[in-house]
């Protein structure tokens, strides 16, 4: 059975140290931005498939292929919905599949970044590009809470299944309705948590002055190799050397 809660799993930061996770955070961010922009520049199926193929070495270096595979499988219903809606309105099967693939490519790029970069590193990236600290902090906190929310979802699903709840597998509406016992506790718990967090920040003098940072990052030749690789990806996909 497809479990919708698995979608979160690929987005949880992995503790495993890999070649990719040890890169400079800015390198990972550049790669992420590239694979976020490139799929949006092309709308043909060949480009989308090649972008997916080009992300495969990165998945291998970051050892995220299995988790991303599970996440794609869990979001298959959503991807299928995108393809179907596109087909209904555009009446072009290849274009519709390309749109589904585009979404999958965005999912892969985001999952690689999230799984290999801890929230503090992401906050540091935003600070490096001069994003105000209160925005950076909100973003970091949102990311840091992904595993917490994932654990909440896990507990809620376990509690509701213990009460005889079944997630419907047939029909979109039935499935959506069967998810209500999961969504409502999730929303209420999240709101309560955010209230508690804001109070906790207030009492710990958040926003009272300029903050200092402890770590500094170093660029290595491995970062250089990955940046060269991403430039090649841009040339292949945008210039379309091989396909156009």
């Amino acid at each position, binding site marked *: 059975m497809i479990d919708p809660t698995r979608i979160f799993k690929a987005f949880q930061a992995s503790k495993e140290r890999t070649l990719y996770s040890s890169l400079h955070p800015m390198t990972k961010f550049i790669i992420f931005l590239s694979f976020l922009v490139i799929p949006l520049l092309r709308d043909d199926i060949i480009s989308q498939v090649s972008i997916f193929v080009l992300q495969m070495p990165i998945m291998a270096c970051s050892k995220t292929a299995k988790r991303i595979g599970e996440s794609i499988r869990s979001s298959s219903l959503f991807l299928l919905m995108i393809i179907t809606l596109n087909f209904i309105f555009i009446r072009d099967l290849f274009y519709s599949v390309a749109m589904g693939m585009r979404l999958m490519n965005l999912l892969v790029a985001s999952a690689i970044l999230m799984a290999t970069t801890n929230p503090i590193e992401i906050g540091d990236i935003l600070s490096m590009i001069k994003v105000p600290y209160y925005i950076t902090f909100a973003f970091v906190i949102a990311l840091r809470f992904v595993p917490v929310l994932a654990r*909440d979802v896990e507990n809620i*699903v376990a509690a509701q299944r213990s009460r005889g709840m079944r997630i419907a597998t047939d029909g979109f509406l039935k499935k959506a309705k069967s998810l*209500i016992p*999961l969504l409502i506790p999730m929303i*209420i718990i999240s709101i309560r948590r955010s209230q508690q967090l804001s109070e906790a920040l207030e009492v710990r003098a958040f926003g009272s002055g300029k903050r200092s940072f402890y770590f500094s990052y170093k660029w290595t030749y491995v970062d250089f190799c990955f940046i060269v690789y991403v430039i090649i990806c841009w040339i292949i996909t945008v210039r379309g050397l091989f396909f156009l």
Partner: protein
Amino acid sequence: MIEIEKVSFKYSGSSDYALRDVNLSIDRASITAIVGRNGAGKSTLLRLLNGLIPHFYEGEFKGRVLVDGVDTREKDISDLSRKVGLVFQNPEHMFFSETVWDEVIFGPKALGRNDFEELGEKALRLTGLVDMKEYPPWSLSGGEMKRLSVACILSMETDYIALDEPTVGQDAVSRKELIDILRSLKEMGRGIIVVSHDLEWISDLRPDRVIVIRDGYIFADGGPDILADTVTLARAGLVPPISSIIGRAIGVKGLGIDEILKEVLG
């Protein structure tokens, strides 16, 4: 009877076993207390009972669990929830309905019971929430929420009821009320399994059996006397309840603090 036979379990992504070679049988019409330090494997043991392990929590599972002769590996969680009801530590994880009444009848309706109204009434009466039928669950106090979570499981009329850390965040009155509910459930023939590190409350509950868990294996198994066994509890990283220390000092065993005070004060 619930029989746990040579069960070992390791959560996926974890290098250590949460449970190691656990053998246990739990009868109906009894109260079994499972105690241990945080991370000892108490909650994992509870998750075995209604099939959350191995169906929901992924990992390496060895051995088998039989609930009234049915192997939990062969039945879905929804089917097993007809036999074993599980009350979670955080009641907030369960609530989603507009009213207490809708919340209580969700379980029996999910199980396809036609007598859900009768079951809901009975559960609310037993937990003292009849007057709060129309209240939103989220507006209840911590103790009422806990009682509601128990009512949600009671309405499913399961033969066994397992509770995970039921006293967390509860005041003295709520703790006492919970004891009364559990004792009456035992008298009704239900098998009660309580997991807690709150030995004072366990001592007041006066369970028929106490199981001490340490590092995923059963360290001690016996009657309520274990709660007065300072050496065993200390080796399991637990502090004996004050009632059992006083009880031992005055030569009385297996009584809660209320009974000891009555004994002392006459």
